[in-house]
C-alpha cells in the first residue's frame, strides 16, 4: 500500500429507516496508531465499526481499510483486518483450539503457518491453559482473549475492537488492556469504548462521536483542550481574615471572583463550615491563578486552597456528548441537573462543539460540502443507496 492511511472514513452516513445513525463521519487512522473511538451508547460507534468491517453498508460516503473500499472489495478488507465485535460472540460448542483453527482455515492459512501463528497468539493472549477447553465453559475475560486470538491469528496489520472490555471485571479489564497495548506496538488499532480511563491508558489519540457525528478528533492533550475552558478551585477561610479585617461572606467572595477579568462563571462547591469553596471557570489560554492570588491578598482574606484543573478527558467527553443525555432524558432532567442552558452558555457550547467538529474535519477538505442543506443530504443519501443497491 502506497499510503500510510490504514482506515479512512469519508462522509460516511448510515440510516436505519428514519433514524440517522451516522451523519457524515470523517476520520483517518494512520499506520501504527492506537486510536480510541469514544462515544456514549447509541452514538454510532458500533455502526461505524460494522461499516468498516463490511458487515453493513453505508447509506452514503465511502470508507477504505488498508486502501480497499469496504463496499467494492469486502474480502480484501476483511483479509486485512482482525475484528472483535462487542461481547466477543463465539461458537460456544467448540473448544478454543478448534475455533482458532476454524478462523485460520477460513482465512486460508495453511497448517504450518497456523501452527506458527498459534504459538504467538497463545503467548500474547495467554491462552495456553485454555486451548483444550470448550468456549462455553470459559469466563467472559477468557472469551475476550479467544476473540482477540481469532482476530490476531492471521497477523493482520489492522485491528478493530468493539468494546473489548465490556462485561469484564476490573482484573480482566486490566489484562485485556495490557494485551491491547502489547499487540498495539506494531499494529493499527481502532478501539471502541465508552470507558475513558481505558483510552487514556491505551491510546495516544481519540475520536469522539456523538449523535452520529465526530465531535472531536486528535491527540488526547488537544482534545482535553478542545472546550477552551479551565477550572479553578478556590477555598477562602470563612472564619478568619487579616488582622483588622472582617471574614468574608459567600456573596462577597463570589462577586469579587466573578468580577475578575477572564472568569466566566463561579459556583459554590460543597464544603465544611470553615471555608468558602468555589469553582471558577476561566479561559484555556490564560492562567488566572496569579490574579486570584492578588485579589485574595488585596482583600486580606486567608487562602486555604487554589487549584487549576485542565479539563479531564472525562469532562470533555461529557461536555461534547451532553446533547445525547439531554435527548434521552428530556429538558426537565437537564434543568434538574443544572444543565438547562441559558442562551450564552448554549452559544458557548455550540461554538465549542462546532470548533471541535471543525478541528476533526480540518484535514478533510470535503467537509466544506458537508454543511449543505439537510434535505439535499437526505436526497443524496437515498440516491446513493439506490445506486449501491442497483
Amino acid at each position, binding site marked *: 500500500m502506497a499510503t500510510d492511511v490504514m482506515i479512512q472514513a469519508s462522509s460516511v452516513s448510515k440510516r436505519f429507516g428514519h433514524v440517522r445513525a451516522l451523519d457524515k463521519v470523517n476520520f483517518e487512522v494512520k499506520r501504527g496508531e492506537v486510536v480510541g473511538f469514544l462515544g456514549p451508547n447509541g452514538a454510532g460507534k458500533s455502526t461505524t465499526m460494522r461499516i468498516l468491517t463490511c*458487515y453493513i453498508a453505508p447509506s452514503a460516503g465511502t470508507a477504505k481499510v488498508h486502501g480497499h473500499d469496504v463496499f467494492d472489495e469486502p474480502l480484501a478488507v476483511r483479509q486485512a483486518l482482525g475484528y472483535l465485535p462487542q461481547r466477543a460472540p463465539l461458537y460456544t460448542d*467448540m473448544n478454543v483450539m478448534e475455533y482458532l483453527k476454524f478462523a485460520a482455515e477460513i482465512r486460508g492459512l495453511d497448517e504450518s503457518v497456523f501452527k506458527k501463528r498459534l504459538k504467538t497468539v497463545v503467548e500474547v493472549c495467554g491462552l495456553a491453559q485454555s486451548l483444550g477447553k470448550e468456549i462455553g465453559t470459559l469466563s467472559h475475560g477468557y472469551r475476550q482473549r479467544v476473540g482477540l486470538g481469532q482476530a490476531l491469528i492471521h497477523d493482520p496489520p489492522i485491528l478493530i475492537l468493539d468494546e473489548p472490555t465490556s462485561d469484564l471485571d476490573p482484573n480482566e479489564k486490566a489484562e485485556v488492556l495490557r494485551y491491547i497495548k502489547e499487540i498495539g506496538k506494531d499494529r493499527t488499532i481502532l478501539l471502541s469504548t465508552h470507558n475513558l480511563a481505558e483510552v487514556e491508558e491505551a491510546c495516544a489519540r481519540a475520536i469522539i462521536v456523538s449523535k452520529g457525528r465526530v465531535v472531536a478528533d486528535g491527540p488526547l492533550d488537544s482534545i482535553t483542550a478542545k472546550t477552551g475552558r479551565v477550572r479553578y478551585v478556590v477555598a477562602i477561610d470563612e472564619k478568619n481574615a487579616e488582622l483588622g479585617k472582617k471574614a468574608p461572606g459567600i456573596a462577597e467572595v463570589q462577586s469579587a471572583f466573578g468580577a475578575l477579568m477572564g472568569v466566566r462563571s463561579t459556583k459554590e462547591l460543597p464544603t465544611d463550615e470553615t471555608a468558602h469553596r468555589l469553582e471558577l471557570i476561566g479561559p484555556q489560554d490564560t492562567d488566572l491563578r496569579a490574579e486570584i492570588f492578588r485579589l485574595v491578598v488585596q482583600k486580606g482574606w486567608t487562602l486555604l486552597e487554589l487549584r487549576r484543573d485542565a479539563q479531564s478527558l472525562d469532562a470533555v467527553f461529557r461536555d461534547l456528548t451532553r446533547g445525547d443525555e439531554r435527548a434521552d432524558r428530556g429538558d426537565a432532567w437537564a434543568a434538574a441537573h443544572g444543565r438547562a442552558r441559558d442562551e450564552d452558555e448554549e452559544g458557548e457550547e455550540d461554538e465549542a462543539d462546532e470548533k471541535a467538529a471543525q478541528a476533526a474535519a480540518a484535514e478533510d477538505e470535503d467537509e466544506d460540502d458537508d454543511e449543505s442543506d439537510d434535505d439535499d443530504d437526505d436526497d443524496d443519501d437515498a440516491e446513493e*443507496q439506490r445506486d449501491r443497491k442497483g
Partner: protein
Amino acid sequence: MSPMMTIAKREFRSYFDSPLAYVVMCLSFLALGFMFFVLRGGFWQTDRATVQKVFEFTPWGLSLLVIPVVTMRLVAEERRSGTLEMLITLPVRDSDVIGGKYLGALGLVLVLVAGTAFYPFAMFKMPWHLGPLDMGPVWSGYLGLILFSAAGVAIGLLVSSFVESQAVAFFITFAVLGTLWFLDDLAEVSGQSALGNVLRYVSFQTRLAGFWRGLIDTRDVIYFLSVTAAALVVSFRALERRKWA
C-alpha cells in the same frame, strides 16, 4: 479447503457436539420403524418384495421433525447470539455462509436418509433374504428422497434467515413443509378443479410419488431443484439485507 466447505464442516460437526443430532436420529428411526412395521399392518401385509413404505414415510418424518429441527438454528441462532457478525466479518462471501450452512445441514439429513438403507439391506440382503428386490424403485426412491431433502433443507434455511427465534423458525418450517406435503390430500378434496390441479402441481407428495414407483420424471427433478435454488437465492438475499437495513 474453501470457506464454504469450512463452514459446512463446522456446521455438520456442531450437530454432533450436542445431543440434538442423536435425539433426532433416534426419534426418526423409531418413528420410521413403527410406520414401516406396525402402521396399517406394516410391511408384512404388503406381501411384496418392496420397501416403498420407507420412501412414503420418511418424508413425513423429515418434514415434520428432522428438517425443522436441523434447520431452525442455522441463521436464526447465529443472528441472536451475535456469532453471525463474527462469521460474516471473516473473509467470506455471503454465498459462502449460506452455501456452507446449507451443505452442513443437508449433510446431516442425508446421513439420516442413508440410515434408512438399513431396511432394504437387512431384509433383502443380510441377515434376511426375503426374495429378490427390484433395485430400480429403490435407487429412484433414494434419488427422490435426496431431492426432497435438498428442497426441504433449503426452505428451512430460508425461514431461519428471516427470523431471530429458533422456536419460530421451527414452527414456520414445520407448517410450510407440512403444508407442501399434505397439499396432495387437499387436492383430492378439490377434485379435478383448477385449484386441485395447482395444489397437485406444487405438492411434494405428488412430486415424489413417481420416484417411489421407479419413475424418474425430469419435471419432478427440475421442480425440486428449482425450489432448492429459489429458496437458497432468497436466503442469500435475506442475509444480505442486513447491509441495507
